[in-house]
């Protein structure tokens, strides 16, 4: 099988830096541009791509992602489009992780989705509204296919939950480091670092942090204590109110800035 997220995170660690993980939804601003955008991420220093699957009721997403996803759905984006995107990301040289609300997987059939994803070069799934307690079928499908499964931990997670969730993860752990929906935030709070160290206390898996990072400086700050820096809304926003061409240029520039941020490395 092609390289998984674990190897990429391992390599970044060896380089003395955090990985840069970029999220973009399939079909925004249109299917073709969205796939070009994911390739742009990889070409400009993104280590892992989170391929978002647009969903009608994105309850843990803030205004930027809601807007992008609504546009993608209005433009006719279908679930099967995600596999074109994962193929393109894989061909560009990065592992694609699909981020999806659970009903889309359920509806397609968990085993069928897993098979198709593996065949399309996918590395695994990030499941924001599936907790390990409800994931028995996905646990066995991911065992069978070798796909990564990434569940979330949060500042509200108790030590028992941290242990339960991280035990179920494979690849890495997603630390949603502020309570609330996705969206750009102006500062990196102390809660994020605390969550990372509480998570590290119960697992050896890499811990990647999402908290609304939008600048190279913030990426450097988070990269100093996390194994991966997850950026979403800021990348999505580069396509608002501009042409696809301009959006791709802005996206390339922002990705380079973020990659330079994580490359500043960390004191070890």
């Amino acid at each position: 099988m092609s390289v998984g997220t674990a190897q990429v995170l391992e390599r970044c660690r060896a380089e003395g830096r955090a990985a840069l993980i970029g999220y973009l939804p399939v079909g925004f601003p249109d299917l073709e541009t969205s796939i070009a955008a994911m390739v742009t991420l990889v070409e400009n220093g993104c280590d892992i791509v989170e391929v978002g699957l647009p969903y009608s009721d994105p309850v843990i997403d803030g205004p930027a992602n809601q807007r992008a996803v609504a546009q993608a759905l209005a433009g006719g984006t279908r679930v099967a489009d995600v596999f074109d995107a994962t193929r393109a990301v894989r061909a560009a040289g990065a592992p694609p992780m699909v981020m999806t609300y659970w009903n889309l997987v359920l509806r397609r059939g968990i085993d069928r989705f897993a098979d198709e994803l593996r065949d399309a070069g996918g590395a695994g799934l990030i499941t924001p509204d599936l907790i390990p307690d409800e994931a028995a079928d996905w646990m066995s499908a991911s065992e069978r296919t070798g796909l990564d499964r990434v569940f979330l931990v949060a500042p509200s997670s108790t030590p028992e939950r941290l242990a339960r969730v991280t035990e179920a993860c494979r690849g890495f752990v997603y630390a949603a480091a502020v309570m609330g929906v996705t969206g750009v935030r102006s500062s990196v709070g102390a809660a994020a670092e605390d969550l990372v160290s509480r998570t590290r206390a119960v697992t050896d898996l890499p811990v990647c942090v999402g908290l609304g990072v939008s600048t190279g400086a913030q990426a450097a700050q988070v990269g100093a204590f996390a194994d991966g820096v997850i950026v979403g809304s800021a990348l999505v926003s580069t396509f608002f109110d501009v042409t696809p061409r301009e959006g791709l240029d802005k996206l390339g520039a922002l990705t380079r800035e973020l990659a330079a941020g994580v490359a500043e490395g960390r004191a070890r």
Partner: protein
Amino acid sequence: MTTGRFGMFGGRYVPEPLVPALEQLDEVRQKAAVDPEFLAELERLHRTYTGRPSIITEVPRFAAHAGGGRVVLKREDLNHTGSHKINNVLAQALLTKRMGKRRIIAETGAGQHGVATATAAALMGLDCTIYMGKVDTERQALNVARMKILGAEVVAVEHGSQTLKDAINEALRDWVTNVDDTHYAIGTVTGPYPFPEMVRDFHKIIGIEAREQILDLTGRLPDAVIACVGGGSNAMGIFHRFIEDADVRLIGVEAGGEGIESGRHAARFAVAQPGVLHGAMSYLMQDEDGQTLESHSVSAGLDYPSVGPEHSYLRDVGRAEYRHATDEQTMEAFRLLCRTEGIIPALESAHALAGAIEVGRELGPDALLLINLSGRGDKDMHTAASWFGLIEETS
């Protein structure tokens, strides 16, 4: 069956950040359920604030149009704030205080759950925010005014279909952000465990009272218990006590909207497959990909693409049956009750009346029907008046 499931339905499909709050809620409500102090306080509120027990009313002039048997209404419309919703809300507001939280939020469709929540918040000194789809704020404007007068903040949600489903999305976003000091009082028997079970338990008093009352009145159990089903709380409330009475048919009436063929309806059981929305596995109106479909109904309270998981279970095991009433049948039933009995029902409840007219005609003059009249129709005067052409449109 894993905890929190009704057969395959229910569960807890939520973002991880909410799990501790759901665990806390489950623990606190289980303790409260056996705590004499909590039970006494709730009982006192039921009696001295809500006006329980709600009465039953036999409606012979209406029954004459429904097969000529006997029809009895359980009068949840006479509760303080005008619907069954207050039963659940007072209990959840008490739990909010027990959890040490100072703020309560809710979604609302018809506005009845919002009004009830705003009322409980005023009574108990809690901050209150209500999420309501923009379309619903327009068709239930009276209730928006009531919530504001009671001191609640009302947020008109402009995403998606701008109805109940989108109000729940927005309430969940608020909750995941403010869960430390905020309780989300879900207004029906949907959502992640423990909500479906807990909300049912807070409404089962409806069926407990009604069973005794109808036995007193008629000396026998009804042939059918009939209720409208949005998320399904008033229906679960009246059904629950009758589940063991195998000879009593339990009949839920969904919103048939403009008819099943039109695609504009909320008759989940007529068309839907199991799926996950808002934390629970249940029957769900969805497209081939699993994207939620928009529902439609003349009544905002039934305009929801999924349904409480226990109803899905009761249907699959054959204990309850579900049918639907179109907007048109509903408005006719609404007018009929007004004209024959002098009772103005909520449009939601009028679906149960429309279903009862059919069931009564099927069963004939020996039948005894018990209908949950879940709410009163003041809020629907604008919709009704324009449906029947009773107001001159002035600008």
